[in-house]
């Protein structure tokens, strides 16, 4: 893919991200952080692609990819679950209020 194209996408995403969260209530700062942290675990895609079947003979590279996959998976699963746990607590109160 063209370098310019990638930069184009990056720049648009940066502006989009900034606009998306222009006004967040401070109550939600922690879940927002852990939730977005889970999204940064998107590296999991790169780690999966790194584990090519024909590449297995080179041990070091394979272990690097494997380690990246484990770490990214921790990040993804842990991040989403803990965020859900937190938001559930916030939710509980909302219901009580009704």
């Amino acid at each position, binding site marked *: 893919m063209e370098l310019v194209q990638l930069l184009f996408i990056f720049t648009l995403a940066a502006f989009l991200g900034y606009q*998306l969260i222009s006004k967040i209530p401070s109550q939600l*700062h922690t879940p927002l952080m852990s939730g977005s942290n889970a999204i940064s675990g998107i590296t999991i895609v*790169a780690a*999966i692609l790194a584990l090519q079947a024909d590449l297995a003979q080179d041990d070091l590279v394979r272990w690097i990819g*494997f380690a990246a*996959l484990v770490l990214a998976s921790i990040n993804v699963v842990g991040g*989403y679950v*803990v965020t859900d746990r937190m938001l559930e607590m916030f939710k509980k109160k909302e219901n009580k209020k009704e």
Partner: protein
Amino acid sequence: MNPPLLQLLGQTETFGGEIGINLAYVASAVLFILGIRMLGSANSARKGNQLSSLGMLVAVAATLVNQGLDYQWIAIGIGVGALIGLVAAKKVKMTSMPEMVALFNGFGGLASLLVAAYGFLNPDSESGGSEQFQALVIFLAVAIGAITFTGSMVAYLKLAGKISGKATLFPLQKFLNALVLLAIVGFGIILVANLPQIGEIEIDPLQAFAWLVGLTLLLGILGVLPIGGGDMPVVIALLNSFSGLAASAAGFVIQNNVLIVAGCLVGASGLILTVIMCKAMNRTLGNVLFGGFGATGSSASGEVEGEMKPVSVEDAYYVLESAASVVFIPGYGMAVAQAQHAVKELGEILEANGCEVAHAIHPVAGRMPGHMNVLLAEADVPYEQLREMDDVNPTIATVDVAVVIGANDVVNPAALEDEGSPIYGMPIINAHEARNVFCLKRGQGKGFSGLVNRLFYRENVRMLYGDAKETITALVAQFKD
């Protein structure tokens, strides 16, 4: 998930496998965007998080469609990681949330660093782009990933109390940091320009890469060491942003759009939080990162008039019992003492007593953005009682009792009146304006920043010494008698 089946689907896809995968990536990017947007509002936040996790699932499933993957290793890797992540996420206490987020940030950074290392060692894995560009993005992914990793680990150790949470300063620190940074840039240039030699010295690219990794890891440690615990909300938010940027850089390395977009979204959201935190302390990011705040104690604490006046639990009870309005102002001390449940109980009793109860939360109270909100939510404090600083300050003069629980700098009037104070100009909760103030404090020592808190010496302020949880439980017991 049945990989061979997915593989088949990928092949028989009308558009052809690759286009199908990319379309799925578009879908997952859309889900991330919607998810983050919904995370910004209390009513939709949980659904937003679920949408974003669905986006992740779509991205992973689409990736598995690719040909020639080693599914066995992938299954093991995801299985191990998912299990660790699940157990950690289920077991962690809400008071330890800052440590948890720091750890996860670090893992994300390390994963991106490893992906970049993979790209370096295995340059033919993905084609396209010039060699220089490839080297440049690998350099960026390594640098950001490594700084995120070790920086987060130091932040974790500080938050968990495994090393001193205070700012660690030593002579020539800034000089050393600058030197390391310079060396990193140097190795970056060597790698990007692919210099065969400098002068007489021949350069082995692999060795240069190893040096780059080592030095960037070192910079992460050196960068976070001089930052004190009170500034942790800024650091965590910034590292959060970095973990996204590292993923984005890794996306450039493997030329993958979904990594670039998702990483960049996280980078932007983390940056916004960072800016909010800095504003809440009236400091620039540069000052937080390089100021070494809190290590030197106070240069300008000056003489404080008056003395700290203790009060007994019993006397405090009589005042609270007749109060018509009470505002709790929690700080990190509440988290340390695990006092949130006791606070909630006291709040309920006060309400039953006909008193109006609110919790005033400063944006940087605690060790991460929103820390106090999470704790009080865990304890089931009603949502409408959680009030922001700007919401409470205009009416605080009419409040009968302000109860400061383990908060310090965020209620220090020096921020308003002492121009020489390091925290001068920081917006605070004006607890001193309340008719009566009780400060719950472990001992007579200074707070985290090492600053004298002028609040404690005010005429309308009484100190309740001791463990915050025990003190509040004792107050609750008084009410029940």
